């Protein structure tokens, strides 16, 4: 994370003396209304219902589950991610609107956990997407989950949780790892480079050999065909 902070970012000069107040207010509000996306990848997900329901009641902290990636702030990755799941996790992550945060729950997301020897389980989640917070344990208790979420809230409030910026800044690095696992033809329906430019985060490491490879075979994205009624069977 340190190297990210060293990259100079052009800061628009502010004329309004109260602007910072609003920035802080925004950051505070953002940290107190976290919508988390329920992508229950592994067995660790079973700790979330108790964390959410009456005894621990996550919602009193302003954290509540959200069904669609478009409206979510946090992506919880609760447990082992198989290579097949990892693809879907990345697609989901890219669909989330920025700012977005990732929490890796369970030892499996840190280092493969008890599936360290499994050919199907990705070991190091932060190779493929930026992880803002890891909550280790097999599986972590609801207290630990809440503690981790509170830690993330604090980091959001102070502006330290900036993994999503890292994804745009160093997209080539993440894409490289994704390509190594999924093959060179890997392509997601999100144009991350364009998004990086949109957020003003495209830097020297956004593009590189891996994005060049992606560009070579990138198919133009087409909207999905919509059909009303049932397809006729032949």
């Amino acid at each position, binding site marked *: 994370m340190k190297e990210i902070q060293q990259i100079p970012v052009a800061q628009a000069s502010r004329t309004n003396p109260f602007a910072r107040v609003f920035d802080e207010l925004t950051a505070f509000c953002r940290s107190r209304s976290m919508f988390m996306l329920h992508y229950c990848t592994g067995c660790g997900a079973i700790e979330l219902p108790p964390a959410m329901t009456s005894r621990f009641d996550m919602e009193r902290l302003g954290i509540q589950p959200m069904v669609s990636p478009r409206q979510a702030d946090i992506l919880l990755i609760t447990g082992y991610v198989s*290579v*097949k799941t990892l*693809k879907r996790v990345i697609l989901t992550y890219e669909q989330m609107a920025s700012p977005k945060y990732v929490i890796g729950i369970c030892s499996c997301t*840190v*280092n*493969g956990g008890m599936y*360290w*020897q*499994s*050919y*199907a389980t*990705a*070991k*190091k989640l932060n*190779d493929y997407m930026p992880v803002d917070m890891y909550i280790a344990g097999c599986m972590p208790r609801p207290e630990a989950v809440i503690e981790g979420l509170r830690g993330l809230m604090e980091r959001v409030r102070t502006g330290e949780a900036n993994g999503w910026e890292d994804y745009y800044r160093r997209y080539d690095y993440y894409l490289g790892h994704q390509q*190594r*696992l*999924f*093959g060179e033809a890997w392509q997601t329906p999100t144009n991350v480079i364009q998004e990086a430019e949109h957020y003003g985060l495209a830097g020297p490491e956004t593009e590189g050999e891996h994005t060049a490879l992606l560009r070579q075979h990138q198919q133009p994205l087409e909207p999905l065909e919509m059909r009303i009624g049932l397809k006729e069977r032949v």
Partner: protein
Amino acid sequence: MSGGEGSKALGPILRDVKGAHITSTRPRRSRVDLPADALPALLELLKGRAGFVHLSAISCVDWMDDGQFELVYHVWSYEMSMMVSAHIRIPREPGVYLSVYDLYHPAAFFERDIHEMYGLYFEGSPDMEKFILTEWDGPPPMRKDFDSEAWVNDHFDWQDYRPEWLQELEEDGGGIAIRPDEQRFSRRK
């Protein structure tokens, strides 16, 4: 019909199957070992004459050192409340066997699964496409000669887990007794 009687009742049916050897493992379970080419006949007899209509599973064992695959067909009879496991051995190369889909339709899934995990091919099975490992391009992973650990080391990186507090402990001569990279089972002497 209870217990051992069930196994005895199988006797007359199996008389027609060449080379079948029956062992009663438990009151309601019998194991039949037989040559590979006699299996369809056995299943047909079991299904037709003794009501073994339920194929609960086909499992596969890789006997790499013998150069053989063992296929186990587990069939269940509701009438006799009895399970029969038919064991056959087939050569590991080329690893081809007949499908029993025409006798038992659920076999399609088991055979597809075994094809994917062990690379065995079932002739006459309706679908030998990928099933669970749809995005897998490595060798069949359940074969004994597939080195899962080597594959993992090739394709993934490990988290370098050396927090500062641990380094301090290590300097004092403590820390993790067996380092994770030395602890891999296959490397243990």
